[in-house]
């Protein structure tokens, strides 16, 4: 279990994926490639993503749970897919705001 709070960063231990929490609070089982993610900078990549969790995570995309209570931003991409409490997260739709500055 890890604590999700805005600004917290986590890394995968089975691929290069890293995320930062944009929205969320409380404890959750955060996994990438089927293996628990750890606080960024505290782990090494030692395995490979499980075949059923290897669709990949894309740099710069936002990932949300269906309840819209958690949003993660991928600050590094990787080959594993991220999930919370066993449920894969979906890519949030791109915003359509025009450039203002």
């Amino acid at each position, binding site marked *: 279990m890890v604590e999700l709070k805005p*600004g917290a960063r986590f890394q995968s231990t089975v691929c290069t994926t890293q995320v*930062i929490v944009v929205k969320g609070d409380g404890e959750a089982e955060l996994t990438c490639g089927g293996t628990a993610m750890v606080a960024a900078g505290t782990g090494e990549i030692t395995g490979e993503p499980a075949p059923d969790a290897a669709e990949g995570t894309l*740099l*710069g995309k936002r990932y949300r749970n269906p309840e819209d209570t958690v949003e993660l931003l991928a*600050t590094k991409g990787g080959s594993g897919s991220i999930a919370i409490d066993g449920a894969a997260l979906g890519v949030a739709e791109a*915003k359509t705001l*025009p*450039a*203002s*500055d």
Partner: protein
Amino acid sequence: MNLMMLLEMAAEGLGDRVAVGPLENGMTYRQLYEQAGMAAAQFRETDGDTVVLCDESSPAVPISLFGAAWAGMPYAPLNYRLPDDDLSSLAQRNTPGVAITDAAGAVRLSGVERLQTLTRQQFLEDPANGASPCTAPDWSMDPDDIAVLLFTSGTTGAPKSAVLRHKHLVSYILGSVEFMGAGADEATIVSVPPYHVAGVSAMLSAVYAGRRIVLFPKFDPDDWIDAVEREDVTHAMVVPTMLARIVEALDARGGEPLLGVRTLSYGGGRMPLPVIARALELFPITSFVNAYGLTETSSTIALLGPDDHRLAQYSDDPSEQRRLGSVGRALPGVELSIRDDAGTELGAGEPGEIFVRGEQVSGEYLEAGSLLVDGWFPTRDGGFTDEAGYLFVQGRNDDVIIRGAENMSPGEIEDVLLTHPGVSDAAAIGVPDRQWGEKVVAVIVLSGQTTQPPDGVVQSEIQELVRQRLRSSRVPAHVVLVDELPYSDTGKLLRRELREQHGHLGDSDC
């Protein structure tokens, strides 16, 4: 959270794309990241706590902004156009520090104690200056660290340092910009100076979007048009005075439209309706964006988008036409509230003070602490929202004219003045009046084509125009003709200066 996280992602995702400068030999995102690491190494070795920038736009601006974030030091850009004494005193408030400046600035800042100066040339040639460059992403991720200190424009009173923490600026970028959302052919021309909040947010937005930055330090409308064409610029942000001059210059060239610009955003002050109306014609296929924001809110909090602009241009519906004078609706994640003097929330159409809340809102000064109450920041701007949530800004509350206990917004009167075909720019100010407390003075600039009418004719025409459109209390007691209105270099009308210039029209004994 740290601003460097944004650059790190860009360097990882778009390493070889040009970040700053011309397409042929500009600095790529990876190079900008490396240069920031070199700058951070040097900054860490100095005795300074703050990175001061006293210079016009150059590649040293993004390098020092990100380098300071990496080193864990606030970045404080100063207005280099200030007189020597004012500049020194602002610099003094950021010591101990290290300053990047031009050759003239190094001389001007030489008397400031505990401020080490580096010339821009030295800094760009060797940002590390002998220090071993930072390469590992070892910047602090404490969201409460101070990222940027900006002196608020100071058109009234002594300037204050607005505090923008990493969490405010990162929230703003994550909330309003899509990562790598820009195409490889997009470029944005940055004409606002580095010490303006838009000069900071422009760097961050462009880096996160992956949009090449074209720096344009000395604004001149003809040079701007040439640069837009030469550098294949697709995006631009201007303040209202700049757009007015660009429109004039395009008209002087025969009114040929500029087709390459895809998005033109404007903000930083009140845009005269005739200027934006003509601009919509001269940029017929451009997406216009009106952005409203404050230094204390990490730039934009509301915007009027492209569709609303074109709708207003072509619509017959007065409520849609009127929205061209609004700043649009709040960004996602930003809340607006209009309140009266007692703090009670007002409904649609009722004017009051604009309050704003959101993660990007700092509302904090080094000198005065945080002004937030339950997250809400009192902007000191007056305004109202319409039924659909469009925000109309009526100007600073300090500029409200109070005549016989009636509060009058200068903007409301100015909008009417500007509808006169012979008027190209206008301001309404209050001057002391024995009977009413204050009375209205209209200061107007006649458009170039208008021949100077005989004395008194303008005054009676203008008074009649206001009388027809507004309550009689709004009718100017005096109408003064001038060649131009005073603006700050970032496009803010200097009302205090106008009140000083025309105060003699008021009664001196009250």
